[in-house]
């Protein structure tokens, strides 16, 4: 016999799994620290690539002046300022992504809680059916 109530619940859960749930389940597989840490590391890599691109544009913009001055300028001081700007840029970006991913993790966990409750309900329905 088909249990209509159970099929309805399963359908609703399958709908959730198909769209929103898939992402949330992927997030839910991580511990909080692991997920946020991983995303922040990815953000740092992105920020580094972006900084390298910006730096390359900066050099290219003034290439002639830069090439003429390269022997005269304080290379150590220049490198120091480049690194300081890099650290500020990356830290700011990492901080923003930390905030974003913390929020996303909390939201996903909350939504998964309902999903797991439904799973429990489903298991209970199965139990009841088999006892019959």
């Amino acid at each position, binding site marked *: 016999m*088909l249990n209509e109530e*159970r*099929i309805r619940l*399963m*359908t609703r859960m*399958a*709908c959730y799994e*198909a769209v929103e749930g898939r992402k949330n389940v992927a997030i839910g597989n991580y511990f909080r620290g692991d997920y946020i840490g991983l995303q922040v590391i*990815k*953000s740092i890599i*992105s*920020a580094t*690539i*972006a900084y390298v*691109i*910006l730096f390359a*544009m900066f050099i*290219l*913009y003034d*290439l*002639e002046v830069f090439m003429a001055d390269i022997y005269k300028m304080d290379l150590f001081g220049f490198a120091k300022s480049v690194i300081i700007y890099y650290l500020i840029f990356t830290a700011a*970006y990492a901080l923003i*992504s930390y905030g*974003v991913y913390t929020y996303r993790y909390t939201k996903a966990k909350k939504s998964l809680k309902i999903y797991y409750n439904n799973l429990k309900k489903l298991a209970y329905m*199965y139990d009841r059916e088999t006892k019959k």
Partner: protein
Amino acid sequence: MTNLLVFREQLKKFYSKYELYLTPFFKFLLTLVTLIMINSSIGYMSELKKAPVVLVLALMCSVLPMNCIVLVAAGVTLGHLYKFSMECALVALVVFLLLFILYLRFSAKDTIAVLLTPLCFMLKIPYVVPIAMGLVGTPVSAVSVASGAIVYYTVSYMVGSAPVLNTFEEDGALEKFRYVIDGILGNRAMYVTLAAFVAAVIVVYFIRRLSVDYAWTIAMVTGALLEVLVLLFGDLMYNTNLSVAGLIIGSLLSVVLAKILEFFVFNVDYSRTEYVQFEDDEYYYYVKAIPKNTVAAPQKRVKTIRVPEKAVREQERDR
């Protein structure tokens, strides 16, 4: 009004019935319009302007996720710019790369705003985008709208300065590069527009969340007024060559458009028909879940009123 509501219900019904075909069709249409607009404004590469190429790209995008439309549009733009000048293509590539690396990682949902903003700029109705994004998005959507505006101003500056760029010598690549960068970074109209758009998105978002009557309408009007104010103020301060008549007509038009969008798109739940499959120990289930329509559109019923023959006969007799 009732007719409109009924029409909306019918539209909703129609959409949920044919959702499977309508969504790809709309994606196809959006890609087609985008590519035609790009080709008509910066069509330097003749290979990309050919109808089969455009159609194949649009067809491809109709079955791919929404974000692919943005990628294709960016690719086509780069192709045209590459044919026009290497330096311009390089600058545009950097702008796109920074956008993808830094911002679009976060908000995949808002990507479409980056495409719609330049598109609406080309259609001369840019002021509707911040209002619409404020109504449906979050304050973060401001970044998407701003990114779209940056892309538009970058590309339109390059196209606008084509006559000057063509006067540079063959080996003047660095000068060309510097000229483009200076032009983009010194574009005051861009900064003023960015400020207006960001302010509009944020203000519209916060007003439409207020628990007052007509919050959405108040939000739209305030957003449009704010855009006009900031843009006029920017024009006075920095002399951005703004067409005041265009601004006012554009803003009025954007409020009307936002109102239409609110009625047909934002406040309607076009819940989709879902196709899901799962199994238990005994069965495989292939379920088609159709959303229920709460307000049914009234069906026209023709009722014929027949006069009983007896009454007709009596009437004739009386005469």
